[in-house]
């Protein structure tokens, strides 16, 4: 199949021109749509995350546009979506493309390295930027419109460490983490938290990307005599395999993981090897909240599978709704005004819980510890950061 670029571009250009000219004439003075930019990573090795982000945005927009008033005054949301792929360069290109198309706000990404690559561009575009990346540094980059709708690694790690030492009475803490920015950042935060308690990890194992066998790491942890293991891993595949191997190699100590351990995919794939494990999450199934229940049922109805709330679809659904609510209150989409309103949010109820903004744009300040009991997460306790 030869894609003749000139013809393709010409055809697209003609079609676009025709649509642009024809559409308003047909519809007359329709309420102007609000263009919302979204950059999930739809292809590449994080495609699963991208798909979850895409689904979360689509559901929120669909629900909002089905309301009588839509966002406000009959104005619907219009999603402008570009694939961030896996590559930082392409992600920045995607962002530039979006910005060139007049979006008033951007949601995504969730990968902190992409966020940091995009930061220089967003510094010169003061529009609301709803992100899900958890690296502590993200909100310290000086991007005026950035908001973080998930708990940062600082909060998550503190919660995990606290639980391990105080609740599980761990005296010899071992860490197992991935080699990507998420894993390393989280592990560093854990070490910092342990230091505050006057402790050091007895083992701090990092496994390389694409590793298939974790015998070496698990045996080392076993040999260190650890009595609790903290896992900081984002990839649900890796999580599942590690849990399986932990089980088969006989490492029978409490396991406390980062949010991905509570990730729907990870739990399904790991099956009974995940039973009994703990994780720190932004959200827990069954948590008493109308918003959350509604989200779960609508999501399942539309997509026929349960959402990955914390890491994927939930926070982004909240992001879109948060913007919609703010636009409705303001009856406008002025970026600077929106940013100021978002910064002033003190108690906004979403799927993930109650959001309130701090000066840096962080919106989540607590983390919940849940336990996987027969495949379902049950709330054990909440820790505030």
């Amino acid at each position: 199949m030869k894609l003749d670029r000139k013809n393709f571009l010409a055809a697209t250009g003609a079609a676009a021109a025709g649509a642009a000219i024809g559409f308003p004439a047909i519809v007359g003075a329709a309420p102007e749509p609000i263009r919302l930019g979204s950059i999930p990573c739809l292809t590449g090795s994080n495609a699963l995350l991208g798909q979850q982000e895409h689904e979360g945005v689509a559901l929120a927009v669909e629900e909002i546009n089905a309301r009588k008033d839509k966002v406000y005054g009959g104005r619907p949301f219009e999603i402008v979506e570009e694939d961030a792929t896996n590559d930082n360069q392409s992600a920045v290109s995607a962002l530039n493309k979006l910005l060139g198309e007049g979006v008033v706000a951007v949601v995504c990404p969730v990968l902190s390295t992409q966020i940091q690559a995009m930061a220089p561009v967003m510094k010169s575009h003061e529009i609301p930027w709803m992100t899900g990346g958890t690296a502590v540094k993200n909100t310290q980059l000086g991007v005026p419109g950035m908001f973080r709708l998930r708990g940062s690694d600082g909060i998550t790690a503190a919660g995990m460490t606290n639980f391990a030492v105080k609740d599980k009475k761990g005296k010899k803490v071992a860490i197992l983490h991935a080699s990507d920015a998420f894993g390393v950042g989280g592990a560093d935060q854990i070490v910092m938290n342990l230091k505050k308690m006057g402790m050091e990890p007895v083992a701090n194992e990092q496994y390389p990307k694409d590793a298939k066998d974790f015998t070496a790491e698990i045996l080392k942890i076993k040999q260190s005599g650890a009595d609790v293991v903290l896992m900081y891993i984002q990839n649900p595949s890796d999580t599942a395999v590690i849990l399986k191997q932990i089980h088969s190699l006989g490492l029978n100590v409490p396991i406390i993981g980062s949010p991905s351990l509570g990730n729907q995919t990870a739990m399904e794939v790991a099956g009974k090897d995940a039973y009994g494990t703990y994780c720190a999450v932004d959200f827990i199934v069954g948590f008493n909240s109308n918003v959350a229940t509604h989200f779960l049922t609508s999501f399942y109805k539309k997509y026929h599978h349960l959402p990955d709330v914390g890491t994927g679809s939930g926070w982004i659904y909240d992001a879109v709704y948060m913007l919609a609510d703010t636009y409705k209150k303001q009856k406008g989409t002025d970026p600077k005004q929106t940013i100021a309103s978002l910064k002033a949010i003190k108690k906004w109820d979403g799927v993930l819980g109650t959001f309130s903004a701090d000066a840096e744009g962080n919106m989540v300040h607590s983390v919940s510890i849940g336990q996987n009991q027969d495949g379902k997460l049950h709330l054990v306790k909440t820790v505030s950061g």
Partner: protein
Amino acid sequence: MNGNVTLSLSKGAPLIVLVAVLALIPTFVHSDYLLTLVDTAGIYAIVVMGLGILLGFAGQLSLAQAAFLGIGAYTSGWLTVNLGWPVWPAMGAAMMLSALVGLVVGYPCLRLSGHYLALATIGFGIITQLVLINWKTVTNGSDGMGNIPPPQIGSFVFDTYGRYYYIILVAVLVCAYVAWRIKTTRVGRALEAIRENEIAARATGIDATRYKIIAFVLAGTYAGLAGSLLAHMTKFISPDSYSFDQSVVFLVMLIVGGSASISGAILGAVLLWFLPEVLRPLKTSYIMVYGAAVIAMIVFMPRGLIGLLEALRARVVRRPPETA
């Protein structure tokens, strides 16, 4: 090589016009999106030209260009962020370190050939990326290195894509000129002889290993320069950009453009950087189309796009095509 000299004279005028047009692009293109694409394409063209010297001229397959890209980027980034060096000397240092690494790695490896060399370069590339990920004290590891400053001349700071375009344009032109000089002089002829038949070349007294190492060092230096340019443009770098997959992308760009030709290298880089962007409307199926397109181009256009264009031109002008 009289043919080439005559060619350059008759090419002179159109070339000047081309350069003039290229120089004017930022004045009538204002979209940041398009400028990012063009800037990145230019930087990648430099990498691919370097690979062209090694693979196109000398016939040596290396899959380590991404590693040199990373070495250049991190050297330049580290010097400017941690030691406060101004950007221009940092770029020079990046090039020199890349050249040095190219020499150190090339010296033993270029005694090998064909698949052995390819695999050794793959190994080198993977090891380099692992070092970038794990040497946290220097590179900051997977978190990446940010706040890399843009270059400036006096008080004129190159911090927009439009301004940066000029730096890239100059770099591309200089690199193309250097490559052209190599191609048309004794070094180029030696490399070509090695490519055609290394044993015969050695028999005629050419120190094949020495020339291969020179080509390898040049390829590495070009990529190092490109890496540095990229770092100061994007202001943030992270190790995941310097993977084996990325080296493969550069290889495909060269082959599609036309491996023995400098303009082929540039064309391949530009085209294959723009292709995924053009295919964006296809959403997730775009990369399948990309893979299929690559296979199709290899099967139907063995000498790349430049080969195709030359064949077409030959038919139009009714002259035998150049054996580039």
